């Protein structure tokens, strides 16, 4: 009772001075919406700030946000009241940093009021990308399945693989070059080694080189990227040795034609017109140069066996080449050609995962018809 009296007295006394503030306490005049939170999916060096003004620009033309990092004042951000959401990312040095934001309002007279809102947040490092978790689990399942199927394949279980026309044609295409006494060209795409398509192509290069070595046909592998060059040199050399024709191997077969896609295309087009290969392999990742190489090969009368995982270049290969490996057929080629049980096992695993993906697609669609996004959340996240 005594306390209340004192408070009442105090309020009465201060009333003339604090009239403005008093109304504030009931329904605060200055308003804004501030949220401060740790940035998701990072190593803990950012805190996100979202700020929406709550007053009109006439009432509060400008806000100021004071930032404190681990208790020490860092800087002030001035925000013009545009009536719109203001986003800011606050960089900090390390994870576990405490960030405090205090919002002040500048009234029409330019007086600083507040702090009207204070918020805190601690930056934190995340241990996994929440949005990549689904893909990670699928990949783990894929790896497990490959292990199981490889074991089966090692025990000698037959694995059926359908016919892939483009790969069946390799034999004839190399044979044709031999008969005509003209060279075989192998172009492993124009990308770098980071591109898995390049690796897939280098995996096909080995059996092709072996074939060429056995038939004693001239061989040429022009390359665009130095790292790919070193790998391709090894592949071709070992293939010639495996075919027992190390004597035919020449270091100059695999060479750097040029760097840069169009300079490469210019050089290879020139080489093709001059040497008139009978067979040209275009396997790997291509960009706009795909059609230049394919058309020039056609002009000199070569059979072209093409394959790429670039969907934008596939139409050109389909139109201009004799045989085309579409997308995943390129990746399946090394298993198909070698018939090695280990590789065939992974191909089977790939089909099973694909089946699972199709089934989840169908289930997700059916469940969506009933308004449930269960599959979407769990399997297709």
């Amino acid at each position, binding site marked *: 009772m005594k306390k209340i009296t004192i408070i009442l007295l105090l309020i009465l006394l201060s009333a003339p001075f604090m009239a403005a503030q008093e109304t504030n306490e009931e329904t605060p005049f200055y308003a804004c919406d501030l949220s401060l939170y740790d940035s998701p999916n990072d190593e803990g060096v950012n805190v996100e700030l979202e700020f929406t003004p709550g007053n009109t620009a006439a009432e509060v033309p400008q806000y100021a946000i004071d930032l404190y990092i681990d208790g020490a004042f860092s800087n002030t951000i*001035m*925000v*013009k009241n*545009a*009536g*719109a*959401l*203001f*986003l*800011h990312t606050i960089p900090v040095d390390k994870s576990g940093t405490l960030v405090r934001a205090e919002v002040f309002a500048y009234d029409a007279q330019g007086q600083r009021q507040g702090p009207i809102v204070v918020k805190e947040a601690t930056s934190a490092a995340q241990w996994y990308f929440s949005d990549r978790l689904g893909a990670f689990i699928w990949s783990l399942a894929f790896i497990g399945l490959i292990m199981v199927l490889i074991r089966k394949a090692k025990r000698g279980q037959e694995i059926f693989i359908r016919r892939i026309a483009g790969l069946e044609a390799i034999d004839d295409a190399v044979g044709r070059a031999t008969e005509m006494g003209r060279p075989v060209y192998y172009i492993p795409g124009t990308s770098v080694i980071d591109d898995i398509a390049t690796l897939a192509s280098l995996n096909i290069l080995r059996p092709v080189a072996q074939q060429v070595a056995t038939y004693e046909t001239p061989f040429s592998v022009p390359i665009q990227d130095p790292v790919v060059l070193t790998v391709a040199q090894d592949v071709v050399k070992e293939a010639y040795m495996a075919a027992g024709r190390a004597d035919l191997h020449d270091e100059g077969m695999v060479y750097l034609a040029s760097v840069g896609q169009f300079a490469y295309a210019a050089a290879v087009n020139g080489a093709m017109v001059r040497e008139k290969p009978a067979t040209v392999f275009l396997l790997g990742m291509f960009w706009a140069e795909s059609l230049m190489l394919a058309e020039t090969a056609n*002009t000199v009368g070569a059979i072209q066996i093409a394959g790429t995982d670039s969907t934008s270049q596939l139409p050109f290969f389909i139109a201009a080449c004799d045989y085309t490996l579409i997308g995943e057929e390129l990746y399946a080629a090394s298993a198909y050609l070698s018939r090695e049980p280990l590789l065939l096992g992974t191909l089977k695993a790939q089909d099973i995962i694909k089946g699972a993906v199709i089934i989840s697609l169908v289930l997700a669609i059916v469940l969506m018809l009933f308004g449930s996004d269960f599959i979407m959340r769990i399997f297709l996240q």
Partner: protein
Amino acid sequence: MKTPWYEKIMSLDKKVLYVIMFVVVMIPLLARWTYNPAVMPEVKDIYDEIEGIYTYNQSHPDTPQGILLSFDYSPSTNAELDPMTMSVLRHAFMRRIPVITWAAFPDSIDLAKNITTFIAKEYGAVYGKDFVFMGYPYPMTAAVIAFGSDVRNFLVKDFYGNLSTALPLLNKIYNYKSIGLIVTVSGTSYPRFWVTYANTLYGKKIATGTTAVSAAEFYPFLQTDQMIGMMGGLRGAAEYEKLVQALETQVIGEDIGSYLRNLYNDAPEGVWDTKIYTPGFSEEELQSHLSTRMSARTGMASQASAHFYVIFLIILANLGFFLSRRAENKR
């Protein structure tokens, strides 16, 4: 035995195809044929939006709305995209709408600067008052968000090193409130980025100019009104160019040549900063200013004749194919 004609056309020498192709593309280009496109609604929408800004500015002379034009393309796609930026700038300068331009990539800085001043000069636009060029804002996301509050804090200086706070235009137009339209011209997926930030966060109107190849990617945004309009490829550029030329005839008159020649005749000294451009046109400059007024439509004429040439070839090849197959069946 003589080969019948239909067998011959099935295996025409490529050289013949190439030479005819060359001729087919060159004739419209040299003869300055222009293709007269039907204007698609998505292109007309951009035009109407800018006209809307003009009407608004007429009634609000002290608080005008401006246009932010972002050069989101590098020189490799300039054949299709230059005519778009030129037409949009012509439209804006003709209507005295304040223009802010910038370049999204380091190698588009020169291109953006050249085109902006090239067009500004045609209408005697004054740097700092009628237009500003902000160079290459980096990082782009931050710059786009900075426009939500006050871009002068983020881009402290313009491309030429002037303080942003010293430019009259930027003191009037420094955030999205006074930007009537954002135009992004790009051969990349940058328009998507503009939609995400400027449209979704700030509700700004976005108009896009894009290459023929990327146009399909952005149609869904038109349907949902996240973009108010789109110019797709050379054709979209030709449509806009046509609209702008019609407007120019109405505002300035038929004879653009003598308009340009007389533009700086009794111009006062010191209005135009010679660091930006020198007033007056040489005859050669005049020619290029005139020819860029129809470059999309002459390009489009070549484009259309190339398309019809190829379709003609395809029909020819199929005719040959059918006739030879019929002859074979008879045998």
